[in-house]
């Protein structure tokens, strides 16, 4: 996840990170950036919920399970969608068209959300 980088780093590392960031910005299609933003959002949301569970309270635990597992599950689904629709991976997923990948993503998400709503209580 090279989206954000911490500024407090040695110059050489900063340089490398800046190069990486620039390359990512320039060479990644907007559609993949769109998915990356979603992944980044899921990660932040999951971290926030996990911190709340660890630091403050796990009550109500079912709500934590629902929220956190939806983050994790959605992250997995979105990451697999991203890898399948990435034009650079075309040779690895020859028989999987981007449409098929999106259909898988939609189906997986619906099933995931069904389980998550079961846990919400």
């Amino acid at each position: 996840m090279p989206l954000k980088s911490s500024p407090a780093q040695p110059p050489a590392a900063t340089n490398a990170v800046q190069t990486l960031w620039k390359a990512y910005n320039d060479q990644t299609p907007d559609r993949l950036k769109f998915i990356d933003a979603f992944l980044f959002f899921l990660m932040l949301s999951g971290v926030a919920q996990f911190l709340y569970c660890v630091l403050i309270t796990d009550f109500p635990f079912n709500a934590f399970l629902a929220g956190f597992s939806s983050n994790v599950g959605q992250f997995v689904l979105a990451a697999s969608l991203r890898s399948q629709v990435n034009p650079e991976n075309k040779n690895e997923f020859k028989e999987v068209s981007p449409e098929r990948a999106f259909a898988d993503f939609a189906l997986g998400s619906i099933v995931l959300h069904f389980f998550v709503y079961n846990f919400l209580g």
Partner: protein
Amino acid sequence: MFSLFPLLLLAIGTQGSVLTLQSPRFKVTSSTGTQLRTEPISFTQKSSTPVTLSQTDILKLTFQVVDKETGDGVQPHQTFLRFYDGKTGEEGIQPVRVTSGGKAKFELNMAKPPLSLPPTSDTPLHVSLIVGTSTHSPMILSLFDLVVPASHPPPYHPDEASFHPLPEIHHTFRPEQKLPLRPISAIFSLVVIAPWFILLGLWSQVAPRVPYLLSPSIIPFITTLGAFEGLLVWYWVDLKLGEVLLYGGALGVITIFAGKQALSKIGDRRIGRK
């Protein structure tokens, strides 16, 4: 037992012949044969000192049942000695063997007390004689008071311990879980909501153009996907599992066709563009 007295009195009234005892007496001897006490039993004047037996003493009781008028010996059908504890209400009935001549001899050996002897309390046992026969009026005679050595405690049953009230069960429940303080909840609510704003901010930067999103071939698919989420929210709020599966199944069929339509359209466009 005492409720029988009216019946017995009635019986006395109906039956003419009356029984009596001739020369009733008791004798207390020790286990070595020494005679400790021997007395005739008087029914008119009860002996003031109760008969006292020690652990090994033997009480012997002799009498003859006779017809009061003729003086002939009578063998009654039933002859019992009754040991009655007035305080506890316990009683023991011991049959007495009477010969055909009406003579009877009863022996109470305290070394081997009969099982029918009631457990001892601090009051002496009242010993009475009950005689019943079909040819004569029945008879109950109070003989004397008897002090016997303390009985053994009742035998301890192996299961006895199981038949006591158990100590009261105190359930321990998990303490009620508390919600955190309101400011903390508010802060973390903001923290958890914050990623949404980051997401919207990032998407506003990199949103890909979706020129065909609202085209008639694609909008049904998007709508059915949205309907699924709406159905799940409805499930959360109100619906039962069975209803959700029913509606979800129906919606799923529509979604499959709408999705096939939409995605194949997109696929055609993508291939055509290249």
